């Protein structure tokens, strides 16, 4: 192994020669791996974001229970106590009609003026029930049978939609990972084989002089690694920009979606992309080297 460390300068010169000898192909390889990795980075980030949104929404699962308006205050308090005792309910409290109005003002922001067109408060009081998501169905059943309950609204539909999106993204994610893996391996092994072919005379001479296979292969490994690392780096940078842009676009019209902090998303995306592209680079080069062992 010593001969590898003693010759780093030589290996870097060899890599430079390899790139120069065939620079058009190498630049195209760099661009295509960069684009593929960009796709990967975006899908994986999307996957994470939807997962994290799912998680936080799951924590916020709640139901609005509207009660019979003829119920007295005492009756309402009893109802709340009874709801609290249902298995799976984490908390329940009354939201008065005024509170409901104020919340809507908050959500609508500038557009809250539309509420001025109403003479009366259009919102009714209700019991806000925090629940664990997996208990929605049994809780619903119990509530329906409970006296004094007029109407139940839950955000299950929204949750289910989100869940579907997350599933689709994860399937898409696996597909893209497979596609990226295979195409990177193919592209890289191809460019490495091309390099080996261009250098076949030199490689033959080195073998005649007794050079170990590892010594001969090392510049090709380095070249492959550099190509994918560069591609991965460019892709990560591009993906970071794109994510920032998307976050900027979402912040205005959809402020209530609980997106994970962008810094964390970018950081985990980059820490995944770089080792992944390095690993694919090494694998692709080895693949190329193996298929050109003898010529």
């Amino acid at each position, binding site marked *: 192994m*010593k*001969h590898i460390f*003693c*010759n780093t*300068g*030589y290996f870097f010169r060899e890599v430079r*020669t390899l790139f120069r000898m065939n620079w058009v192909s190498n630049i195209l390889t760099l661009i295509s791996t960069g684009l593929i990795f960009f796709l990967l980075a975006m899908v994986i980030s999307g996957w994470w974001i939807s997962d994290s949104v799912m998680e936080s929404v799951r924590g916020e699962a709640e139901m609005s229970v509207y009660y019979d308006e003829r119920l007295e205050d005492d009756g309402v308090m009893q109802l709340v106590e009874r709801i609290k005792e249902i298995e799976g309910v984490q908390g329940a409290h009354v939201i008065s009609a005024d509170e409901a109005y104020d919340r809507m003002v908050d959500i609508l922001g500038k557009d809250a003026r539309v509420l001025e067109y109403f003479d009366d408060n259009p919102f009714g009081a209700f019991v806000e029930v925090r629940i664990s998501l997996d208990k929605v169905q049994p809780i619903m059943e119990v509530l329906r049978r409970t006296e004094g309950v007029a109407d139940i609204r839950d955000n299950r539909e929204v949750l289910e939609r989100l869940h579907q999106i997350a599933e689709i993204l994860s399937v898409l994610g696996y597909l893209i990972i497979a596609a990226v893996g295979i195409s990177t391996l193919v592209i890289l092994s191809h460019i490495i084989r091309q390099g080996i072919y261009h250098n076949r*005379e*030199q490689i*033959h*001479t*080195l*073998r*005649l*002089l*007794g*050079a*170990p*296979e590892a*010594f001969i292969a090392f510049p090709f490994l380095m070249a492959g690694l550099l190509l994918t690392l560069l591609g991965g780096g460019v892709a990560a940078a591009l993906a970071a920009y794109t994510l920032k842009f998307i976050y900027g676009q979402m912040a205005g019209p959809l402020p209530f979606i609980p997106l994970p902090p962008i810094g964390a998303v970018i950081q985990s995306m980059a820490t995944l992309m770089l080792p992944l592209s390095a690993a694919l680079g090494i694998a692709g080069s080895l693949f190329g080297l193996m298929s050109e062992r003898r010529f």
Partner: protein
Amino acid sequence: MIKAKGVCLKYPDGTPALNNINLSVEPGELVYVTGPSGSGKTSLLKLFMGVEYPTEGSLEILGQQIAKVHEKEIRQLRMKLGPVFQEFRLIKGRTVMENVMLGMRFLNASPSRLKEDAGVALTKVGLAHKALSLVENLSWGECQRVAIARAVARKPELILADEPTGNLDKDNALNILELLTSFKDNKTAVVITTHATHLIEGQKDCTLIRVDGGSISRERTGGA
């Protein structure tokens, strides 16, 4: 150093290149291999380098059996050889110095040692002033010297030079032979092939091997 017993070499296309070769070369021996073109001189050296394997008989180089099953060990054996190829096999686009160093890079010498040894070898072949020239800008004879420098800088136990005098005029050819034989010492044997028999007439203290039609005859000239 070299022990051949009943060695035959038949190329895959059926060409019988060498037939029943029996031979032994000792450390410090100088061997000239002569014979007409196509007689099998290069083939003999290819066997010695483990590039071809005997199709019959047994061949041992520096204690290493030459056979397909020993491919890995033969690669290591080659590190102890100093080959000078008939077609030089220098790497184009690299300097003279880089070419000489390339032959040593995987021998585990330190980088400073590498440069020093390459410089010494280039001085010995009289090309120190061309160290930074690209090999494609050199004359035939200069290329020959670079190839020799690359071989001897490795401090080999066995120097194998294939037709090092080809294409050179008599004076230059004699210079090259003199240069190559100067690397012979009590540990290092030198094997040189040439079809120019007139160059080695009267050479003292060496072994002459004549290859013809795949067979060899051996003759020992006396010491000075």
